[in-house]
């Protein structure tokens, strides 16, 4: 059984106890514990079930590489699945549940998969659930989804807050072990600005746990002094609980700081995402110990040898009174010493090497521990926890020599440098034969914008596993990084430490070497995804030779593991199955983030009201107070209609249309784009921008214009007013203002840069209010001021003047077909002007109207709307707008494209009006069907609906659409699709349904 030892545990505070819950059971731990150490202290060896076979699983590791001990933390809207117990700091009232089991952790139905595991090999789903095809969607997938998945997702909004912050530094050091501290000290002393991030709450890494000495001091003391020195440097920032999540192009890096996960009651954002630009990144991310692949290596109680040391030294917790050690290298012997020092029993050291000798091995032997060379574990035995191990010869096929009873197995397959950050941005790796691992190739680093390497490995992450060489390398790395960043001060002395002599490691990928299939089916490579040695071998046998294909076929190293524990062992198995050397097989791609980061931290502050900034017109508040039913238009909110108490949206829209047609309506048109184009070449420029001639427009006049892309397609429309000889005001659509301004600037800056033209986007400088309807003139005249008569200000003209007390620019333009004045006043006077109009208009029956009434009235008049009648594939000629395309101009944007054969094809669908035969409303986007089917067996179509409304004016459904040869087919009745089946009939008519002579707007 695992238990808390009577003494020891450098990180825990034994004087205090805290209570937490695991699967509803109340347990006790100490401040300083992780959830994993506290669970082990309570003899909770079984902490979860595996993903595919639902096998019992226990804690394997002590850090971020933990594949098994994933729990759902917290309750309700704070519940978070897949949290590693090994990196979760214990706090009072912590609430955790294990995952992947039903109905309970100890009695799990899904374990039947384990009994069937022989029938669930790699690619099982791909092979089995192919036929019949509809079964996948309706039978197989729903069932598999039910039984798969790593924990449930919370279903309520996250109540916590998150933030982003930025840092610009010379040197970012990732990893707060002794190598990272050394590099940070060297860079900081040299004068560089430094940011050091450490993912855990402790600095010093393995050196402190393993009792090393640096500069003649205990590593713990050295670390304390180093932190003190860094703290005294004003240009150095040291962050704990902050993980270097990813390294990206040109020195960009993300660091993920967890501020309150260990203390939920703190008043602070929960997570903070640091967006860092560093001139150099020092990667001091250490190394991970590798598991060994023997049968039953996933049974609870089988742990990494280094993790066993961590639990004993850091938390005073042991996985069992008696531990069996299995290894292929020297480092596991440190675990034997640690256990002996804690008065625990070491059952034996099983060493796969034929023979080995080093001071460390001799020291273990001299303390009376049985050490067997050339031996292996054939099989770990036990169900919910290990009780013994069957021992065999490493070179054999697994013939059992003896059973050794034990409560835990500490394994070490050697170490792999953590090279993720090196690889995120393209750094390449070399295979190191001696250590049997990939290490960063210093000649092929990730490159910055100057073509220079910007990531510098330090310590174990660079492949320097011995302490002395690691510190020397790290010092050099810090100094070089600072110097590259322009800080060439004195980096101080290199910390001195011993690198003890070690016997060479023997690569062991399968234990024993010639294990039969029955054993290989129980050798886990990837605990989290339940990938075994036999699965990778099967994938190779079935032709998955690329490591990337094998990964996807078997799921090796996928999900949160990202190859931390499984990578090298899996590659080695694949390479031997393919009979190719490991470096040839290569690695899969390491992708950020290094370990998962919260979705909240990615979103940062950008949620709710500030997800996207809202643009408000000067009259926005009035709309909000008067029943506005909002419609998002670009970043604006515009009133769709103004609902009165007890009124439906449909009724409100109909009322607004009718009132405007019969009396007078008021529209907030402030969102329309207003771009000023000025300069001696302004007319020439606008002739290129618009399809029609703008240079001939007279001062004081307005003209409707169309804009096309160079592809010929219609992109925007609006009224242009010539303000003076060299000045034009171009109105754009609401959503198009910024885009069209950018479009103009692009052509001016990159093609016609010698033309004398300036543009400026004045959209927000003015409030623009349309006063529309038969009484419009009367309302404005009541306010007094400038002459607004038909003689003084005829249709399609504009004038500056005063209306009442307001400085106004009045445009006689109409998008409704009614008598209409669009009045622009300075934005700051917009609300007052609106209020004044409502006051004087009351006697005339004035009512504001929204965008839907605007749409209906323009459709009744057959006016097109960008985004309804156009979709990026429509040219003006399709819309019957030939009158707005100049024949006199040599050139305009889109002119050449519009004579391409496809554009000039008479079979293109063209704009018509549509009138349902029974007065109902066509569906938006409905297709006009033809007889017959196309090559795909689909009904042929000959047109589609682009705008469709119920017209309150006409009391019936009206629509516009694009129909093949439409204008030549007036009076023909077409059949239109309906969602859910059935057809609707409509007659082709003129798109102008109302006042086709234009008499009402021109009075």
């Amino acid at each position, binding site marked *: 059984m695992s238990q808390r030892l009577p003494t020891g545990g450098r990180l825990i505070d034994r004087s205090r106890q805290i209570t937490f819950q695991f699967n509803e059971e109340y347990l006790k731990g100490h401040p300083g514990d992780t959830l994993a150490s506290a669970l082990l202290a309570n003899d909770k060896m079984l902490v979860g079930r595996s993903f595919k076979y639902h096998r019992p699983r226990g804690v394997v590791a002590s850090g971020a590489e933990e594949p098994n001990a994933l729990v759902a933390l917290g309750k309700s809207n704070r519940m978070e699945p897949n949290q590693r117990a090994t990196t979760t700091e214990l706090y009072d009232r912590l609430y955790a549940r294990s995952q992947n089991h039903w109905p309970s952790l100890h009695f799990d139905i899904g374990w039947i998969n384990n009994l069937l595991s022989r029938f669930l090999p790699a690619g099982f789903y791909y092979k089995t659930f192919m036929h019949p095809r509809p079964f996948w969607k309706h039978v197989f997938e729903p069932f598999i989804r039910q039984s798969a998945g790593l924990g449930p997702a919370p279903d309520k909004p996250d109540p916590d807050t998150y933030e982003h912050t930025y840092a610009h530094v010379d040197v970012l050091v990732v990893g707060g072990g002794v190598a990272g501290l050394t590099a940070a000290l060297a860079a900081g002393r040299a004068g560089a600005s430094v940011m050091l991030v450490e993912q855990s709450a402790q600095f010093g890494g393995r050196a402190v746990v393993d009792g090393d000495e640096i500069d003649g001091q205990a590593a713990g003391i050295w670390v304390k002094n180093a932190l003190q020195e860094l703290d005294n440097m004003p240009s150095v920032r040291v962050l704990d609980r902050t993980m270097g999540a990813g390294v990206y192009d*040109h020195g960009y890096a993300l660091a993920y700081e967890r501020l309150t996960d260990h203390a939920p009651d703190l008043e602070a954002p929960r997570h903070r995402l640091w967006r860092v*630009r560093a001139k150099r990144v020092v990667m001091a991310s250490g190394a991970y110990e590798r598991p060994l692949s023997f049968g039953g290596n996933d049974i609870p109680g089988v742990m990494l040898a280094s993790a066993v040391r961590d639990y004993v030294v850091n938390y005073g917790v042991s996985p069992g009174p008696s531990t069996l050690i299995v290894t292929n290298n020297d480092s596991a012997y440190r675990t034997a010493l640690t256990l002996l020092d804690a008065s625990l029993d070491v059952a034996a050291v099983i060493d796969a090497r034929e023979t080995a000798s080093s001071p460390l091995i001799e020291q273990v032997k001299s303390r009376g521990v049985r050490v067997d060379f050339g031996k292996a574990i054939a099989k770990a035995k036990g169900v919910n926890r290990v009780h013994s191990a069957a021992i065999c010869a490493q070179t054999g096929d697994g013939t059992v020599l003896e059973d050794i009873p034990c409560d835990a197995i500490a394994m070490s397959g050697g170490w792999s440098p953590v090279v993720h950050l090196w690889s995120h941005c*393209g750094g390449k790796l070399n295979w190191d034969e001696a250590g049997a691992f990939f290490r960063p190739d210093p000649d092929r680093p990730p*490159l910055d*914008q100057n*073509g220079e390497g910007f990531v510098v490995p330090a310590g174990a992450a660079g492949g320097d596993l011995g302490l002395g060489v690691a510190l020397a390398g790290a010092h050099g790395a810090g100094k070089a990084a600072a110097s590259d960043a322009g800080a060439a001060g004195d980096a101080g002395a290199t910390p001195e430490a011993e690198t003890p002599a070690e016997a060479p490691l023997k690569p062991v990928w399968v234990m024993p070497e010639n294990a039969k299939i029955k054993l290989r089916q129980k050798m886990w490579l990837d605990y989290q995804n339940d990938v075994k040695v036999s699965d990778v071998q099967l994938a190779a046998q079935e032709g998955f030779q690329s490591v990337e294909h094998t990964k996807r076929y078997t799921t090796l190293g996928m999900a949160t593991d990202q190859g931390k524990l499984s990578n090298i062992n899996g590659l080695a198995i694949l390479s031997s199955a393919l009979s190719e050397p490991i470096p040839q097989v290569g690695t899969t791609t390491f992708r950020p983030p290094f370990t998962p980061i919260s979705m909240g931290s990615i979103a940062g502050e950008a949620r709710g009201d500030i997800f996207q900034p809202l643009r408000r017109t000067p009259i926005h508040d009035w709309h909000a107070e008067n029943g506005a039913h909002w419609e998002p238009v670009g970043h604006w909110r515009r009133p769709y209609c103004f609902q009165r108490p007890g009124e439906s949206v449909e009724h409100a829209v109909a009322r607004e249309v009718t009132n405007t047609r019969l009396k007078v309506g008021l529209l907030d048109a402030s969102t329309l784009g207003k771009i000023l184009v000025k300069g001696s070449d302004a007319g020439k420029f606008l002739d290129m921008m618009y399809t029609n001639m703008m240079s001939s427009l007279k001062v004081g006049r307005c003209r409707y214009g169309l804009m096309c892309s160079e*592809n010929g397609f219609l992109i925007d429309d609006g009224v242009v007013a010539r303000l003076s000889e060299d000045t034009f005001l171009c109105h754009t659509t609401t959503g198009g203002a910024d885009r069209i301004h950018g479009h103009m600037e692009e052509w001016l*800056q*990159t093609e016609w840069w010698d033309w004398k033209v300036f543009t400026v986007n004045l959209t927000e400088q003015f409030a623009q209010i349309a006063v529309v309807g038969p009484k419009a003139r009367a309302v404005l005249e009541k306010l007094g001021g400038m002459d607004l008569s038909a003689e003084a200000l005829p249709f399609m003209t504009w004038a500056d003047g005063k209306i009442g007390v307001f400085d106004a620019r009045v445009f006689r333009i109409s998008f409704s077909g009614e008598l209409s004045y669009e009045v622009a006043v300075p934005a700051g006077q917009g609300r007052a002007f609106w209020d004044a109009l409502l006051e004087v208009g009351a006697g005339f029956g004035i009512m504001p109207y929204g965008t839907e009434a605007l749409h209906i009235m323009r459709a009744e008049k057959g006016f097109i709307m960008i985004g309804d009648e156009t979709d990026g594939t429509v040219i003006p000629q399709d819309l019957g707008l030939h009158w707005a395309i100049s024949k006199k101009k040599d050139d305009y944007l889109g002119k*050449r494209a519009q004579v391409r054969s496809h554009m000039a094809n008479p079979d293109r669908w063209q704009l018509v009006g549509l009138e349902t035969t029974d007065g109902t409303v066509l569906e938006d986007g409905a297709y006009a069907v033809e007889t017959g089917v196309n090559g795909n067996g689909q009904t042929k179509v000959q047109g589609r609906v682009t705008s469709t409304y119920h017209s309150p004016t006409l009391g019936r459904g009206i629509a516009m659409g694009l129909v093949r040869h439409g204008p030549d087919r007036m009076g023909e009745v077409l059949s239109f699709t309906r969602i859910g089946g059935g057809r609707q009939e409509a007659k082709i008519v003129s798109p102008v349904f109302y006042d086709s002579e234009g008499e009402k707007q021109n009075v």
Partner: protein
Amino acid sequence: MLLLRCPYCGVEADETELAPGGQAHLTRFGPGSEDTDFEGYLFMRKNPRGVHFERWRHAAGCGKWFHAARCTVTLEVFGTYSAQTTEPPDALVAKIKEKRPDWTPT
């Protein structure tokens, strides 16, 4: 995330401040041009492995368009320069040749 120095305002700008504009130094073909010339201008773009000239706009900054010479493999930036030119400056071409001896301007 790329860093490019805007040659107008001098800011070393994050990619998020910039808007990409595709291949640089296109020659516009307008009305009267041959179909193949127009097709080349409108649709055909280089996609080189190595040195590439691009258009960028400092969209969330000074708003100016500019040109950048960049290696599409290593993301090394050889330089940025004015949008108001039909070819890269000689000094920049010389610098690229020095760094990429195998490269020939096309």
